[in-house]
């Protein structure tokens, strides 16, 4: 084993760091690199602008093949990029377009689809959202009922998606719809790409308990999509969603973001006096912060390991490793939020709009927003089931 970076990689890292240090000075007040910030009215323009700059530097899709706008860069370089991006709370990565659809099309798209859809993602011209969940198909996604019916060269889509992050700002949506109603579960689904401006699509906001607008409901009323926008064969959409995993699943950016959050909380505890001593002198606070440092480091090591497996095996990787990274990351973010909230005492509750808010009210919002992360993209329960079934070979009963 050897955990060192090469000198070329160190140089690259410094280049990334310099860029983000400079660019993040221009972030709007309260920027936090969460999806909620990126898709807020103040955050989104900055997010898009950052994406343009990353694209211009050739960094947005470095690991993609050259012919579609990438640089064929090794995963380890992507790892370094994500570490720096996460630490500096950088914006600009469309997790749906760059992170999910891109790899999906690279693996399963037709040549025509790759040429049509990958370059606009690589140039940061087209932002995507993901039409997966429905009101009656959450964890049991394969039971979804939104219908797509073939009509000549088109399909006509009717139904409803929900929890669609950023649909109010996205240019396009990739979605699953049922093309075979006889098949109740995953076998009758197809994968479609739609322009959000297509007539018949309506987006309605869903506000979270702390009042941010990230999620939406998306209604489809006789929406016409050309058949050439179906990815893969008809009724084979599920396999496409299962076949691709993306680099971001390693969670590396999140871990370095948490490292930064911890550094700031440590500084806060060193400066803040309570009951006659600094918070940093309080043994309980010290141990809470140290435990977080241990858990963040363990998460970071796991993400490096996943990146290493991806480097060796392409972007395909063990499902249970991705599940572990997901459930560990979201639950750690939750523990972090609660610890931060607790350490701040009465001040923990203050929203960022107030002059009394420590660290921009980070833990007031994080303690609410963290809940969604335990549910989004596969609930913690689903992830644990996957670890048990796929990783440990335990009997699958559902």
């Amino acid at each position, binding site marked *: 084993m050897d955990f060192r970076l090469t000198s070329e990689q160190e140089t690259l890292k410094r280049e990334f760091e310099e860029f983000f240090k400079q660019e993040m000075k221009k972030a709007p007040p309260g920027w936090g690199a969460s999806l909620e910030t990126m898709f807020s009215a103040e955050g989104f323009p900055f997010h898009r602008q950052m994406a343009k700059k990353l694209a211009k530097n050739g960094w947005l899709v470095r690991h993609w093949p050259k012919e579609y706008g990438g640089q064929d860069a090794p995963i380890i370089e992507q790892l370094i990029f994500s570490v720096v991006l996460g630490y500096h709370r950088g914006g600009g990565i469309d997790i749906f377009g760059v992170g999910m659809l891109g790899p999906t099309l690279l693996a399963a798209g037709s040549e025509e689809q790759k040429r049509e859809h990958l370059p606009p993602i690589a140039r940061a011209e087209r932002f995507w959202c993901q039409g997966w969940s429905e009101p009656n198909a959450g964890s049991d996604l394969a039971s979804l009922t939104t219908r797509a019916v073939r009509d000549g060269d088109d399909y006509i889509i009717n139904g409803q998606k929900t929890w669609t992050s950023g649909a109010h700002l996205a240019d396009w949506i990739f979605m699953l719809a049922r093309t075979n109603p006889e098949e109740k579960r995953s076998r009758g689904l197809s994968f479609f790409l739609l322009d959000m401006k297509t007539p018949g699509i309506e987006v309605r906001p869903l506000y979270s308990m702390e009042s941010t607008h990230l999620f939406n409901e998306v209604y489809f009323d006789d929406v016409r999509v050309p058949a050439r926008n179906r990815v893969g064969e008809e009724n084979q959409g599920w396999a496409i969603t299962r076949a691709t995993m993306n680099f971001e699943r390693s969670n590396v950016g999140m871990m370095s973001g948490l490292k930064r959050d911890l550094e700031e909380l440590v500084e806060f505890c060193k400066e803040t006096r309570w009951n006659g001593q600094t918070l940093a002198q309080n043994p309980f606070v010290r141990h809470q912060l140290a435990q977080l440092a241990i858990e963040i480091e363990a998460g970071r090591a796991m993400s490096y390991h996943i990146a290493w497996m991806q480097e060796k095996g392409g972007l395909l990787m063990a499902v249970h490793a991705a599940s572990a990274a997901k459930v560990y990351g979201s639950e750690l973010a939750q523990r972090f939020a609660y610890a931060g909230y607790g350490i701040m005492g009465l001040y923990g509750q203050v929203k960022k709009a107030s002059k009394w808010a420590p660290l921009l009210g980070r833990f007031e919002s994080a303690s609410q927003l963290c809940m969604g992360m335990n549910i989004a993209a596969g609930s913690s329960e689903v992830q644990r089931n996957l*670890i048990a079934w796929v990783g*440990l070979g*335990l009997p699958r009963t559902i």
Partner: protein
Amino acid sequence: MDLDFTQEQEMLRTSARDFLTTECPKTLVRELEESEKGYSPELWKKMAELGWMGLVIPEEYGGMGMQFFDLIVLLEEMGRNIVPGPFFSTVVLGALLILNAGSGEQKKELLPKIANGEAILALALTEPTATYEASGIKLKAVAKGDSFVLNGSKLFVENAHIADYIICVTRTKEGANPEDGITLFIVEGGTPGLKCEVVPTIGLDKQCEVIFDNVKVPKKNMLGKLDKGWPLVARTLEQATVAKCAEMIGGAQAALDMSVNYAKERVQYGRPIGAFQAIQFYLADMWMKVDMGKNIVYEAAWTVSEGLPATEKVAIAKGWANEAYKFVTERGVQIHGAIGTTRDHDMGLYFRRAWAGDVAFGNTEFQREMVARHLGL
């Protein structure tokens, strides 16, 4: 970056696993736990023949000349199988310390004996003060002619009762800085004035109380320099802590495997208990703790092996390994039900070692405090 083990390391792992499965069955583990000596001279001899005791000893001293990181692979397997005996105290605490600090003569005399299995070593570090900090070292060594005279007591000294050599950490000077004035001596087992008594502990791992009553040690047996012994101890503690992590994570993996297998076999309500989500969730969490533990333990061990600053990484690894091993064996017992709580079941062997490992070289609270200092708190 390269996060794979070498082919050689993989071979070492496989051969160690095969050897221990055959030569150190759980019946032997139980027998040795109850025995006075706590080890099997026969097994010890076979391990020496495989070159294990000399794994990290340079070839010029009769060893195999491998690296500390290679030793980690072996220790993980020993933790996985459970191997009672003085391997850890002889090799990790003894041989490495002599390698780090010994004079040419000391190395020439002791390392070949360790490599061929002739010498068993113990490290007498902790005292009834029960701390791994220098302030806890009270046992006095006073110069007298060509010797030093040692007086005081040591506690939790693993295998002192069978040791041919005990490396004793003594105080030779009192001062404002407790890390100053620490000196190490190599004391031969059986030296007059040395008294040993095994303390019964949760791991039944033969930790001793060692009384030094006017024990005379020749000056030439000083290991390292007078009063300057603490950095040697600190380096040994770093190596020992991460080595203990490897053992623990190996044990945790065994307890996990045992639990997964049991969950697939044990039928209740007409189905294997592993089909129930409650059990699946336990096992998923156990797997995560073990798998993630490996990553940080390997990275910390590699950092130590490379001689890079590793204090924080080692503290993090131990903090994780402590909790992971305890968690996995606790859930392991729960999954096994009542049988898991019995003396006859192997889960208990691992459960007890998790708790013994937890306090060795600093429990989680101790490691958190180390991490807190590194955070600048």
